[in-house]
């Protein structure tokens, strides 16, 4: 039988990277100023995971891709208007709080509960995808916790490449220190893959894919279940912006020779 995978991509949403962020105190703890009106994007690393999932599914006909995303329903809808045009998937939204100050353990619990009840999911063929970190909390633990909760004993983080073989086993390249990849051979699904950037470029917008996706995304958003995230004893002592501000010397009228000499002297014994 040909290899088919049930790929579940866990992806949060993050403020557009070009936005200026300012922390504020809210009744529920720390948050971002005007958080609900900041433009949002699918978390960049999770987006890589989604594109890799779609690519893998296309190479293995019969595979399915679910995108499980936790966030405020309105923000999810905004983000999906763009993401839906990039790749084919089934959205499974979970209506919950936004932001990087929520607890990863509670997030993992909510995601796991949703994944475990996905209709038609075959856990023996499950590949749990996501970003190895996020642009919000950036802890890099949510996917591992979800994997443990689902009983998956083969996990890979910082993944840049997966190569599936005919027998269903696959080679994974994970980022390790020193600009290297660790190459591992896994016997097959189920497995957790936390993606770094992967090797695929961001797909171009495809309106046809977008229209097909939106037929299922909008109803899915309407019936999204709600999740409340318990802080599990997590307390914030202080949240602030880094204060470091440098005094910048702008050298406008130096010749290339003079600049080069200054740079070489600055580099010193390097």
């Amino acid at each position, binding site marked *: 039988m040909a290899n088919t995978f049930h790929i579940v991509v866990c992806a949060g949403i993050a403020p557009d*990277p*070009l936005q*200026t*962020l300012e*922390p504020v105190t809210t009744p529920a703890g720390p948050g*971002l100023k005007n958080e609900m009106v900041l433009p949002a994007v699918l978390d960049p690393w999770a987006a*890589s995971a989604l594109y890799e999932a779609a690519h893998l599914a296309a190479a293995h006909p019969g595979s399915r891709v679910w995108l499980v995303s936790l966030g405020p329903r309105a923000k999810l809808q905004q983000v999906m208007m763009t993401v839906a045009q990039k790749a084919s998937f089934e959205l499974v939204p979970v209506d919950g709080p936004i932001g*990087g*100050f929520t607890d*990863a353990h509670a997030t993992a619990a909510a995601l796991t509960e949703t994944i475990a009840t996905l209709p038609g999911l075959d856990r023996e063929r499950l590949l749990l995808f996501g970003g190895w970190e996020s*642009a919000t909390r950036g*802890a*890099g*633990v949510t996917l591992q*916790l979800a994997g*443990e909760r689902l009983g998956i004993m083969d*996990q*890979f*983080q910082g993944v*840049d490449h997966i190569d599936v073989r005919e027998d269903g086993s696959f080679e994974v390249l994970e980022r*390790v220190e*020193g*600009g*290297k*990849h*660790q*190459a591992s*051979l*896994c*016997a097959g699904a189920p497995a957790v893959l936390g993606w770094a*950037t992967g090797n695929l*470029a*961001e797909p171009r917008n495809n309106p046809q894919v977008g229209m097909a996706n939106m037929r299922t995304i909008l109803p899915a958003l309407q019936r999204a279940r709600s999740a409340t995230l318990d802080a599990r*004893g*997590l*307390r*914030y*002592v*202080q*949240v*602030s*912006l*880094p204060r470091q*501000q440098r*005094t*910048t*010397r*702008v*050298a*406008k009228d*130096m010749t*290339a*020779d003079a*600049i*080069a*000499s200054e740079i*070489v002297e*600055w*580099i010193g014994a*390097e």
Partner: protein
Amino acid sequence: MESILVLTHADESGSALSKGSLEAVTAGKELAARLGASLVIGIVAADAKAAACVLASAGARLMGVSGEAFAQARYASDAAACEALCRAANSSIVVAPPGSRMARVAAGVAHRLGGVIDTHITALGGAECVEATRWFYRQRVEGTITRDARPWFLLLDAGTHTAFEGAMSDVHVEQVAVELPALRTSVNGFREPLKDAQTIRPDARLLFVAGAGWTKKQPDGETRAVRAGELILDFLRLTGASLGSSKSLVDQGGDGQPVLPFLTHMNQVGQTGSTPRHAKGLSTCCHGEEPHVVGWRFIGERRAISLDPNCGWTRGKADVVYVADAFQVMARVNELLAARKE
């Protein structure tokens, strides 16, 4: 009363602890001294006793997990080893070293023990309780947190503590037995760029960041990507610097635009890339905004070459901005560096 376990592992040689592990030992010792807590150091290695020789003067109880299965970094075996060490030590605070090996398994182990975890810890403080400082939103917001739940796993960021140094001596390591699950994954080694193409050097003192401007049209209306590549590689060869890049430059290949063929996503710094920690950084042809600043947060001295005197990211972020053509400047820099080498 808190009790502290520091998890450590061997480096690639298998016979010594990794640098990150030694940094974690320092953090654990400092925390234990401040809290008056007991200290246990757990070692995961093919031969934990051999790797622990440097810990003779650490003033800690040593526990180890040994065996060929633990010579390699793999989730199933590492998680089982760390779980066994944590259960044997029964500590309330677990300090784990920076690096891919522990980052892969620490959360899973915390879950197995019914504990909680926080990662990328840059400082440990607090007078009456443990307070951990970390970044949020990719180094754009800093926060200090504390938790009631135990065990509390704290995965440190690299370079936040000095590496522990001790004289090599024979030590007693309590060996902890591990029941391994069926291993479905085998580690087949490492892949790295060919020697000539090696552009990522974490130990270099200098980071050279190439921006998308290198491949854009120059004042004569032509693109000069080939020349840009020559200048950059010459500079890296002459200085031993590490190469970083903006996402836009790496992504250009997919858009059919001129590219620097030696750049990959591994070179990316910033929002979707690495957060390097070199002593000095020289950025060239970059016009990044906040995402680019993110990648520079932990660079000591920063200089930039840019044609745009009003480039927003450099103001307040770089120490010096040279408003000049990077092609001309870097050609001259390379000449001077080459002359010095002769």
